[in-house]
């Protein structure tokens, strides 16, 4: 073996990510323990990093109160879709195995400071939080549950938009979810939408934007069309703050930007104003 070759066996090492978290926005290294204690909010730039659906449920609800609904409703493959990287059904199955959730939203009943609600929380890890037919069906069933139980409906979104692999059926979930939410409102029940990073495309253009209250996390990307598409269309560079939660609030489409640590208390407070 020449002196410059690596030894066959590398010395054992602790993976960096177990010790350090890197802020996805400003790239600063934060001790993993501190990062998790801060619910993944960057101490330097205040970026609110993406949470898994279970992490967000723990953040928003009273301990032990969450009961999942319709866990059996999973993804469908109505087009038998395949692209150059393989079959959608295989990718979706792998995602279910990896994330432990059957769709891009987890729905259930829970309490928030003792107020009983029906809650849906999206998970960006599930195919970019895309809106599939299983997602739409879970939302419809959650809305109907809210009506049956006379409870407020709360949905926290995190999604790039419609799920291309389900084609037109995905697009129709926008109509279906909005129809279900219209019924919640007709029943006189509150519907609160929480927009987290990112909430774009077909999700922003459906249930995420029609809350009685639209609440956003700081710095979340919120918008309809993608930045690159818009830049190509208008042939101009867009400012850095374009399509941020702050931009969306300034333009009148969000009621309040609430830091993650205060989100649960904020929800409870506004629900009390709504009579709960």
């Amino acid at each position, binding site marked *: 073996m020449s002196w410059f070759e690596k030894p066959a066996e590398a010395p054992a090492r602790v993976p960096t990510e177990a010790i350090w978290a890197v802020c996805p926005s400003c790239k600063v290294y934060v001790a993993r323990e501190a990062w998790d204690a801060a619910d993944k909010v960057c101490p330097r730039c205040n970026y609110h990093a993406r949470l898994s659906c279970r992490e967000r449920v723990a953040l928003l609800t009273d301990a032990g109160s969450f009961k999942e609904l319709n866990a059996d409703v999973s993804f469908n493959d109505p*087009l038998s879709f395949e692209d150059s990287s393989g079959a959608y059904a295989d990718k979706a199955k792998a995602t279910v195995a990896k994330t432990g959730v059957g769709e891009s939203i987890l729905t259930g009943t829970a309490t928030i400071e003792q107020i009983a609600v029906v809650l849906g929380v999206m998970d960006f890890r599930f195919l970019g939080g895309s809106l599939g*037919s299983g997602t739409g069906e879970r939302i419809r069933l959650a809305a109907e549950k809210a009506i049956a139980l006379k409870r407020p409906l709360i949905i926290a979104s995190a999604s790039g938009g*419609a799920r291309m692999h389900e084609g037109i059926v995905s697009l*129709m979930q926008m109509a279906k979810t909005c129809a279900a939410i219209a*019924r919640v409102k007709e029943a006189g029940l509150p519907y609160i939408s929480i927009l987290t990073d990112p909430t774009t495309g077909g999700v922003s253009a459906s*249930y995420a934007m029609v809350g009685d209250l639209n609440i956003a996390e700081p710095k979340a990307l919120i918008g309809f069309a993608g930045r690159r598409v818009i830049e190509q269309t208008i042939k101009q560079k867009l400012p850095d703050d374009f399509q941020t939660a702050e931009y969306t609030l300034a333009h009148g489409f969000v009621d309040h930007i609430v830091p993650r640590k205060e989100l649960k208390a904020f929800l409870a407070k506004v629900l009390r104003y709504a009579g709960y």
Partner: protein
Amino acid sequence: MAKKTEKKLTAWDIVQIARHAERPNITDYIRLMCDDFVELHGDRLFGDDRALIGGFATIGGRKVMLIGHRKGRGVEENIEANFGMANPEGYRKAMRLMRLAEKYSLPVVSFVDTPGAYPGSEAEARGQAEAIAHNLEFMATLKTPIVVVVTGEGGSGGALGIAVGDRILMLQNAVYSVISPEGCASILWRDGSKAPQAAEALKITAESLKKLGIIDAIVPEPTGGAHIDPAATAAAVKKAVLANLDALCAVPLKTLVAQRYEKFSAMGQA
């Protein structure tokens, strides 16, 4: 393309017909199938979108509220019509007119033909997402019949924003999709030139969408496409619209709205 027999047309061929520069647009349909049309302008909030128009119309003696995307013919008219890509004020105007339709007990006829909602920075600032989202919610519970006809391009959320209805009809060579074949190809194939494959995989033709249960009926076109004989196409559209209006106007409004909910609820259930 027109020389191929209808049976041999690929999804990508049909995309070309749907986007054909001479394909009848809403202005043609108004001229060819309406006895009368009174255009109503403006959303009362910001402006009057020329990419999405509407007004009172009489079709075969029946009074309706007609709304639809507007593509132009030629460069100048297309620039004015923004190539059929509506801004938020277009969707808000459509909602205002549908509210009027409900008030005056007029059925709504909606013509869909857009590459998509306009992806501009001003459109974002004025709430493109909110405008579309509210239309979806509003149309789901509108207490008057809604007949939708996809006449050309049904481009994603920009199409759906005026396409929630009791009956969804589609011209034989129209397309309706969650994303353009080019957009899908560049994301999933990482190669925009794979658009023909993406068009096939996305199942965007009237025939595929009928099989998937998304649309209710296909309106036939002359061989080669609607642009070969706009008058015959408009006659076929008129006949289909009137037949569906007759059927829907006989249904009590409460039942109609409940059935509309069931219709969209069923989409995507395993």
